[in-house]
């Protein structure tokens, strides 16, 4: 295992120390239980937007804390959902009197821990579960689809709704609209290595890739021979388009995400291919986000996320945001 760490057990704490030093103008770190809080929290009268999940997906979620997006993020151990204490602390620290929206990626651990926290909360809380990964067949007999790349637009858009003064019910309604209209799929060329595990999460041959991968080093749905960029992009895009389905004339946000180690050089190349394939189908890319936002440590690979936009979602996406990882507007 090659990592710039001291001990596996101190990685998350040490990283939070550095995060706070790097972005002290935006956020404060509470160390026990670990919570990253907007520096000016609570914002009176504003619905608090809270998310969290295992560490190792940075910049999600800590790098998305700040005006226009998250009020707090709860970082769990690497690839392990946070505990209820973290979430209840996040709620306490950010409660501006208008309640809190909990953004939960659909994994059993995340759902259960946030659920427990919601039961304990002393302020009004609503939960939105994001399950945008079309690689997983949805079924009431399984844990259901995972939450992956769609989390970023969800956090951005609900953050903007809260910032403009929407109440909790309205923010929750916007969140449901995002979840209903966002779909993602990812692939990996290499596996990540979790510090306390010390070896790659799965073994891939030199000529294999894993399609339909999650963001925790879970093996994907299928292992296939490596393909070129056109092939990779088509493999991700087709199931996304078929699922909702997206149709000619739809206006979308296209989010081309690096899983960590894929260079921007390759990511932009893939993004260009995805844009061309969408244009060929008459789908209008109105906005785009390209970069490593929902990562899986040093995994090589990428994911595509499509969000069908309406005027309001577009306006909320465009609204100002000021975080370590996303920043625009005033």
């Amino acid at each position, binding site marked *: 295992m090659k990592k710039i760490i001291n001990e596996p057990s101190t990685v998350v704490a040490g990283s939070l120390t550095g995060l706070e030093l790097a972005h002290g103008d935006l956020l404060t770190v509470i160390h026990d*239980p670990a919570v990253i809080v907007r520096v000016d929290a609570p914002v009176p009268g504003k619905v608090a937007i809270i998310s969290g999940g*295992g560490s190792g997906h940075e910049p999600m979620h800590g790098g998305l804390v700040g005006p226009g997006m998250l009020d707090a993020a709860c970082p*769990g*151990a*690497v*690839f*392990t*959902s*946070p*505990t*209820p*204490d973290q979430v209840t602390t996040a709620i306490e620290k950010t409660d501006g009197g208008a309640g809190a929206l909990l953004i939960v990626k659909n*994994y*059993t*651990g995340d759902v*259960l*821990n946030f*659920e*427990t926290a919601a039961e304990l909360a002393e302020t009004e809380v609503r939960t939105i579960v994001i399950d945008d990964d079309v*690689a*997983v*067949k949805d079924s009431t*007999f*399984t*844990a259901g689809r*995972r939450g992956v790349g769609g989390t970023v637009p969800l956090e951005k858009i609900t953050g903007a709704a809260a910032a403009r003064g929407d109440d909790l019910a309205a923010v929750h309604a916007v969140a449901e609209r995002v979840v209903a209209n966002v779909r993602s799929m990812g692939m990996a060329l290499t596996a990540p290595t*979790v510090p*306390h*595990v010390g070896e790659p*999460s*799965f073994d891939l041959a030199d000529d294999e890739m894993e399609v339909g991968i*999650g963001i*925790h*080093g*879970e*093996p994907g*749905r299928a292992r296939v021979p490596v393909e070129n960029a056109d092939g990779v992009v088509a493999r991700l895009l087709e199931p996304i388009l078929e699922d909702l389905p997206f149709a000619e004339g739809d206006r979308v946000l296209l989010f081309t995400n690096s899983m960590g180690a894929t260079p921007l050089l390759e990511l932009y190349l893939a993004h260009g291919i995805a844009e061309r394939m969408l244009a060929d189908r008459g789908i209008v890319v109105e906005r785009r986000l390209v970069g490593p936002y929902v990562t899986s440590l040093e995994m090589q690979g990428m994911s595509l996320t499509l969000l069908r936009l309406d005027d309001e979602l577009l306006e909320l996406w465009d609204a100002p945001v000021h975080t370590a990882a996303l920043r625009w507007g005033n």
Partner: protein
Amino acid sequence: MGCTASDLVAALRAAAATIREHRVELIQLDRAIGDGDHGENMDRGFTAVIAALDANPPDTPASALKLVATTLISKVGGAAGPLYGTAFLRASTAVKDRAELTPADLAEALTAALGGVVARGKAEPGDKTMVDALDPAVQAAKGDTVAELLAAAADAAAAGADTTVPLVARKGRASYLGERSAGHMDPGARSTSLLLRAFAEVAAR
């Protein structure tokens, strides 16, 4: 013959030691069909449990079980944290304020624990989860002594864990794998079996 608070603490110490010993095995099982953290999660949790028991020695079985529950809930995270946490919490409630648990009390506690896991996780037997170890353990948990009861439960849990190998997961992270989840033991079923074995061994002393 019964099980006092200090018997329980001894059993929990043995459980923590077993988890530490099998940490890598649990990581490897979870690496195959999950995300590789189950051994780390359980070890972090039970290390914290021992620290909590040392800091606040419990005087009743119920308070011992409750301390385990709250510690696991606040230190483990993942699926295992709330599931095991709820199990211990329900067990704690079930045993009320009794100072020494009879075999019947223990059987009731195990039933309550299973009920907690199912209430939280909604898994059924055959879904390839810890329920596949805990459910047969509860059914087998009979005996004239605590030692006998726990030995039977541990045997059944071990057999139950083995039954998970061919199953296709329908709950938890392993369910994302679909058919590819078959051929591996469920890590949570294995940890349940390890915990019950540790309890049984302490009871047998």
